[in-house]
């Protein structure tokens, strides 16, 4: 049983402030962390490994990003992941969803393919929730998004519960297949110091463009991305408004007055 978990390094804070006078964007710090939703994906893989037995199951973490993204693979090692790959090349930079998922799929093919692919539901920086399903399409395998629980897993396939807002589905897919996990599917374990020491020498393997089965640069990064960001801007505020200041009695009075006036009470 080979399980692949896709993870991503994201900015530790997603706070961006804008200088009101110049409209210039300011990002608070450049620290990064593992995408919090990926912790649930890793935990799901590790639970499955416990179920299958550690000699029968290998968990591999794959990420794409600059060299410093190795640190999220290290963190995955500290949680119990067996091996890790970083897909990194200048040619991969500026990738949108299609190019990102294509790069990942090429990496997976290079590594040799897996039975089960697990992604977090989305990232906190892009918030698209699209890379997982697009990856499944590139790999030509079925996927289930928004998996809330793993109901059963055997040698041939997996049964999961999927939350589609109005409908809850229980489904079965045979391997290979891909799932994206909801937050709280399992409580993610903390990275362990013991495993940190034990995995210090473990290599994070790096795959570059030249390692990929398809090494046509045009299919990757900016040039492989059909979407282009035309412009980034700060939203305008154009609503008329009243400002209430003063003590809390006055404020509470003004609010309730407005609620009565507008027939909310």
């Amino acid at each position: 049983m080979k399980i692949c978990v896709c993870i991503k390094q994201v900015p530790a804070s997603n706070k961006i402030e804008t200088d009101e006078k110049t409209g210039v964007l300011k990002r608070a710090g450049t620290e990064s962390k593992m995408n919090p939703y990926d912790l649930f994906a890793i935990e799901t893989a590790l639970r499955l490994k416990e179920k299958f037995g550690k000699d029968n199951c290998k968990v591999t973490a794959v990420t794409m990003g600059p060299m410093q993204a190795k640190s999220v693979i290290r963190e995955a090692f500290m949680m119990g992941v067996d091996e890790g790959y970083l897909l990194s090349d200048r040619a991969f930079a500026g990738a949108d969803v299609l190019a990102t998922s294509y790069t990942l799929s090429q990496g997976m093919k290079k590594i040799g393919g897996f039975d089960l692919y697990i992604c977090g539901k989305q990232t906190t920086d892009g918030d698209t929730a699209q890379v997982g399903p697009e990856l499944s399409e590139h790999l030509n395998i079925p996927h289930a998004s928004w998996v809330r629980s793993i109901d059963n897993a055997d040698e041939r396939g997996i049964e999961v519960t999927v939350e589609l807002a109005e409908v809850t589905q229980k489904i079965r897919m045979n391997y290979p297949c891909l799932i994206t996990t909801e937050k709280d599917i399992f409580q993610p374990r903390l990275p362990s110091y013991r495993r940190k020491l034990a995995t210090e020498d473990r290599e994070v393997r790096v795959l570059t463009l030249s390692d990929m089965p398809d090494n046509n640069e045009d299919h990757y990064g900016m040039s492989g991305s059909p979407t282009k960001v035309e412009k980034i801007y700060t939203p305008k505020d154009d609503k008329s408004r009243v400002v209430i200041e003063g003590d809390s009695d006055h404020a509470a009075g003004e609010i309730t007055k407005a609620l009565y006036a507008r027939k909310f009470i």
Partner: protein
Amino acid sequence: MLKINAAKCDLCGICKDVCPFGAIDIKKDKVEIGDGCRLCSACIKKCPKGAIEKAEEEEKEEPRINKDEWEGILVIAECTGGKAHGVTFELLGEARKLSNVTGHNVICAAIGCGILETAEEIAHFGADRVIAIDSPELSKFRADIYTNVLEELIKEIKPSTVLIGATAQGRSLAPNIACRFKTGLTADCTSLEMKENTDLVQIRPAFGGNIMARILTTNTRPQFATVRYKVMDKAKRTDEKSCKVETFSPSKGALHSGIEILSSSFSKEELSISDAEIIVVGGRGVKNAKDYEMIKELATLLGGQYAGTRPMIEAGIVHYKRQIGLSGRTVRPKLIITCGVSGAIQFTAAMNASEYIIAINKDPDAPIMKIANMAVVGDIYEIIPKMIDRIKRGVS
């Protein structure tokens, strides 16, 4: 990729300061642009020397397609439990506005089993064509075969734009189908514009910050976008149907799925803050679950729903189904009262279509105060109990 013209650059460091991604480094004798660069162009605009430019290569890129071969806007109707999801009618309303620019058709495809009646109803909402894909295999959503049948339909009608609701189902389906056509998909758009050359301007909050991005898919077709529920205006229902319902039969092979549905049920506790008319929402200013009780009490007194921001959900104080934000629900109530919410774009983008916004916050400069109709500067811990007291006593 960006290029620095070393002859013009005086290493002033402004580019480094304005880069929202921390991708620029000022070395001793040159500026280095790292892998974090997302080509947002912020540095290009702010460089006083005009020393940064986008590399030529992307300028000369030829369109890979003939845009004239692709025409019209296809709306995918999400049909669950014998009726179309509300977002369908919003997509139809938006598609009509967009199509007014190009004069092309609005086409709606309904996929499911026993959905002919649903399709007939959709035909009252102004589409030029309504196409039903009706088959027992399609009775429950399965991303793989829904993608297959849509692929066949899209190849036949060749729409320039495909709009899909950004629901749980839509956000599973859209990436699959967009990827099959090796084309662009923009998630969770909050606003759309159409250019005369049929390029769709897809607008969404970006990079997890207080910024909006305008995104284009200029060289591939169709252009796919998922659109937030409760953001666009619904199409008006007319007594007359605007077209006859057509049917489309997918091939046998398209209906072979790798997903077996063991059971399917309507989710219990269909709590939907999306449909609430009055919402009281607590943000980071509410310190803990116990204090959150006053938010609940106020919401209940007003006959509304209570909700929370992302930090409140992450702290386990509020259930995720009550999260307002881009990673939660979009709401458009008649009244929303935000309590101790600062107003990050991920939040405001999901609620700023509300009819009347009252914001209570200590910080008069918080972003939420700028979009509020009534911005109340003060402490929620003092104001809310006093409001509750007044409402209970029936005085203003």
